[in-house]
């Protein structure tokens, strides 16, 4: 039995880390797309239009039930097949990153729309009623009163989502994407699986580290935007008064 080489472990980490950039690209891209479109889906779920509501709920229910391996392949083979007859373009040779972003975006729209919907409900109708009774329009009530509060409630869940996207995206290597997972697979093949433990422990360390960092980031964000921050970090109550009067 071969002993585990610590030196090789670190060497492989250094070899894999440069590809973290690729990983973060698809994580952030799908997060952004999820927030933008998830907003519309959440609005559909909350609103009154039966058709949109049904569509949004069905979409979420179905997407949440599909494993990532399955969805990745479905997108990888399906999207070119759909695009070819419509646009006449063969995109099956396109950068694998695009397919991963599409797949993860489909997921993030489902997750984020659900998060937005539940944090909206968490705020409570009373805030809205007080706002409109006070002369604000529906839109102003939403934008100035509901949204800021819902945003803070949603932050921890958004943090979980981004970590989920990081992990689901790891299956991109099955269609040939060279992110950290793909790089690890290549390195492993190149060394004929002799250093498999060192490589994959290294990879696990990178994922673990990134997840931990992201978690810390979101805890920080939650504190930063919450009311407690405003209360603790304004040195003088007078200072607030000055701010108001100007």
């Amino acid at each position, binding site marked *: 039995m071969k002993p585990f080489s610590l030196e090789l472990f670190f060497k492989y980490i250094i070899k894999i880390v440069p590809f973290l950039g690729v990983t973060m690209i698809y994580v952030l891209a799908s997060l952004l797309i999820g927030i933008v479109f998830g907003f519309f889906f959440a609005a559909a779920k909350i609103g009154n239009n039966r058709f949109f509501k049904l569509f949004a709920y069905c979409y979420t229910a179905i997407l949440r039930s599909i494993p990532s391996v399955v969805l990745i392949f479905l997108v990888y083979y399906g999207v070119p097949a759909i695009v070819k007859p419509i646009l006449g373009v063969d995109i099956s040779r396109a950068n694998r990153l695009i397919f991963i972003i599409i797949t993860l975006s489909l997921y993030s729209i489902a997750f984020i729309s659900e998060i937005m919907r539940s944090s909206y409900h968490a705020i409570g109708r009373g805030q809205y009623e007080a706002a409109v009774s006070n*002369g604000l329009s529906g839109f102003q009530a939403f934008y100035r*009163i509901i949204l800021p509060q819902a945003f803070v409630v949603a932050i921890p869940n958004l943090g979980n989502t981004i970590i989920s996207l990081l992990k689901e995206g790891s299956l991109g290597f099955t269609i040939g994407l060279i992110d950290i997972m793909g790089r690890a697979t290549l390195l492993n093949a190149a060394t004929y699986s002799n250093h498999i433990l060192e490589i994959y422990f290294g990879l696990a360390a990178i994922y673990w580290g990134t997840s931990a960092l992201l978690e810390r980031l979101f805890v920080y964000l939650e504190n930063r935007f919450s009311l407690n921050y405003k209360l603790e970090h304004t040195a003088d109550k007078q200072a607030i008064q000055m701010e108001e009067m100007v």
Partner: protein
Amino acid sequence: MDAMLEVKQVHKAFGKHEILKGVDLNVDKGDVIVILGPSGSGKTTLLRCINFLERADKGTLSLDNMEISMKHAKKKEITYVRKKTSFVFQSYYLFHNKTALQNVTEGLIIGRRLPKRQANEIGMNALEKVGLKDRHAYYPSQLSGGQQQRVGIARAFAANPDVILFDEPTSALDPELVGEVLAVMKKLAREGTTMIVVTHEMSFAQSVANKVLFMDGGVIVESGVPDEIFVRPKEERTKQFLRRIIPDSDYVI
């Protein structure tokens, strides 16, 4: 003299349950109207229908001689009514993410488009009137229930509405805090503010109201000046209700 606010034959059902079965209400300027009644009698629903937090099934609302159908009111008409009325909630519903002063000025700056300086001035005066000028920079989570409700009242009258609607303003408060809120409301009443108050606080009704309405089962059973209602109630239902609320010894025959 035409009534300032008139509600005619308002009906409201929730599903199969009819809550309001044809209620009329006349409000003159300077009136302090108290609505009493057991729970489920429709008093809160009536109030909420007036500023369209609930959409009535039937009825008309006249405000300053403008007649509005309560069922088919358009957005412009609803906004018009909401600009001329204010609402104080049982659970205060202060904006959690705004300070006391910001809570009061939010409707002025954003809703009525007053310049910030003017709004802040009005806001500080309002807070002073309710005795909370020194707490203007506090967030609702830092205020007691009574203080929060006082801010809520300040928020309501700062906009200088024609009528202020109070929905059981002291029901959610600890007994020691009820007094401070009632004091503010009495002050407002004495200054001539037009108020419609749904409450269980008999002392308020007896000392400040100039009209008392007793509601039960979705209709107004009896109405009159406080003396008439409390001392010489005519209807049996009114007598039953009062017997439960006021100890017998308070009765003067």
